[in-house]
């Protein structure tokens, strides 16, 4: 339950230095560029996310936040630079792109639950078909996850019968079912009514507290203050500023950040 900020007690000498919790880089992006036709969306993004870290990405609409987060699990390709996820470089000719994706959970703004499957089937789908778990075991794990996100009683309902907040929690459980090493969230609460935002943020808080590596695109200031280890501001395809929540909110270095904060606070 405790954050992994400080190295654990006891001998760590027999571990390689980059395996010390909090040190191991899970996502390394170096000078990433991407164009949509003639439009330069990502203009040299460099960001490293370490094991157990929670990074919140903020920024105005159209600044390329979604595009960047989607390059991390290769839903979008990129044209220059380098992205390494858990030691595997994402290249065009990467044979097992699915293997990388199965280690990276993703939660979408629009939930994207599979409407023809029940909540439980949504969660068991990937473990059964990708991990090849027996159905029994997959269902057991799925039920545990649905309990963890607080909706075990909705297991046999279809997405169309669930509220937005419930759907998004199923979507989180679905991503967690693959036992991913890190989770990406693309504005997970922006499509939700205010009263449902909290239930989703609570789930994400618990997830962060359990030590999950997370990259979250979000404008939830309270959540960012409380949970983020680092906040970055993205604007027009570049990372403008990066800092701890205190630095970011109380003492921003860049004029651009101050203007952005003036708008959302």
């Amino acid at each position, binding site marked *: 339950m405790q954050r992994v900020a400080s190295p654990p007690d006891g001998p760590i000498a027999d571990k390689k230095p980059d395996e010390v919790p909090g040190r191991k880089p899970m996502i390394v992006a170096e000078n990433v560029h991407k164009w949509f036709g003639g439009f330069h969306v990502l203009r040299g993004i460099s960001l490293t996310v370490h094991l157990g870290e929670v990074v919140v990405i903020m920024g105005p609409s159209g600044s390329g936040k979604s595009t960047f987060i989607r390059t991390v699990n290769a*839903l979008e390709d990129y044209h220059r630079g380098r992205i390494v996820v858990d030691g595997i470089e994402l290249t065009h000719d990467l044979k097992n792109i699915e293997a990388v994706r199965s280690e*990276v959970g*993703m939660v*979408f703004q629009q939930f*994207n639950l*599979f409407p023809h499957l029940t909540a439980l089937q949504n969660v068991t789908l990937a473990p059964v078909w*990708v991990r090849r778990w027996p159905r029994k075991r997959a269902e057991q794990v799925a039920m545990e996850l649905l309990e963890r996100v607080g909706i075990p009683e909705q297991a046999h309902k*279809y997405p169309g019968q669930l509220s937005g907040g419930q759907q998004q929690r199923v979507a989180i459980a*679905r991503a967690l079912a693959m036992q991913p090493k890190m989770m990406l969230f693309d504005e997970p609460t922006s499509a939700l009514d205010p009263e449902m935002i909290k239930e989703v943020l609570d789930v994400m808080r618990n997830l962060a507290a359990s030590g999950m590596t997370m990259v979250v695109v979000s404008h939830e200031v309270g959540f960012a203050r409380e949970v983020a280890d680092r906040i970055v501001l993205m604007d027009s395809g570049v990372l403008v500023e990066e800092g701890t929540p205190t630095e970011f909110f109380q003492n921003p270095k860049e004029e651009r950040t101050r203007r952005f904060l003036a708008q959302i606070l």
Partner: protein
Amino acid sequence: MDPQPQAGKASLQRSRALPQPGEGPPPAPRLGAVGWVRQNLFSTWYNGVLTVVCVWLLYAAGTRVLAWVFATAQWTVVRVNLRLFLAGRYPQDQTWRIWAVVLFVAGLGVASWAAWNAARRHPAAAWFRRRLPLAWFLSFPVVVWLVRGGAGLPVVDTSLWSGLLLTLLLAVVGIVGSFPLGILLALGRRSSLPAVRALSILYIETVRGVPLITILFMAQVMFPVFMPEGVRPDRVLRAMAGLVLFTSAYMAENVRGGLQAVPRGQVEAAMALGLKSHLVVLLIVLPQALRAVIPAIVGQFISLFKDTSLVAIVGLSDLTGIARSILAQPQFLGRYAEVYLFVALVYWIFSYSMSLASRRLERQLGVGER
């Protein structure tokens, strides 16, 4: 659409205490039978005139039809030839095989229906329900074996397949064959491989550009020309091939419509879970796409079923072909009305059943619910 029960409910509710808010069904509009008639049939003077004219027309036509059906028409032609209509020239002493097919299919149908409905309660039913597609798939060779013979049964040559039997066989083979072929063509048309895409488009657009009758003629006349001497697939088989090839092009376009209706986010979510692309198509895209186009697909099947009547023109004796030969019997010369009315009724029964089944299926799968 069906206001009578509503009106009844309304008059029932009148005598009850007003329901408390938040309890009971929503109140029905309070209309008696007279009120309903006034509101729906005589709301304005021209609606009133229209109603009167329609009722008069219905009455005049209806009584004449009934008089013809029960007094004038001579149904002997149907009664005497019933077996010919249904089983055609299938050997008399082998008729039991057709009954066996009917029983077998009906049994499988009832079992499927039971399993579908009991799947929630009984694990065995759920087990069977998951294997229903397989069961139906395997039933196909069984039916073919029963009808055609071989492996212990005397072979009945396809030239003896006729009547409703032939019509149904053509339709079933057409449906079973064109469905997967259509899906493959639809996927091919959206493939990222240019060659596959081009071939699919070429095929679909070529076939959709010509009438079915030309394809059937080509299958009968041209096909043998291209084949080496001595290889002569039989006429029924060739007609089946023609129907499958024709229908699959239309099926492909229907399925493509469904594929386009699946949001991009579905594919992305599936890929993000690490599913390989063929599994994404199989588990996520196709089920949603096919559900969305059930009405169109069933419509296609119904029109295929009726289109099988065109094989009569290339010399096969399907239901309409048999009808023509019955009309040539000396004692029934000129009994067109009776014969074709009966034939139409048979077509209608099957088409309407398919329509009903499709609506049931749509409801079961909750199309349009989300």
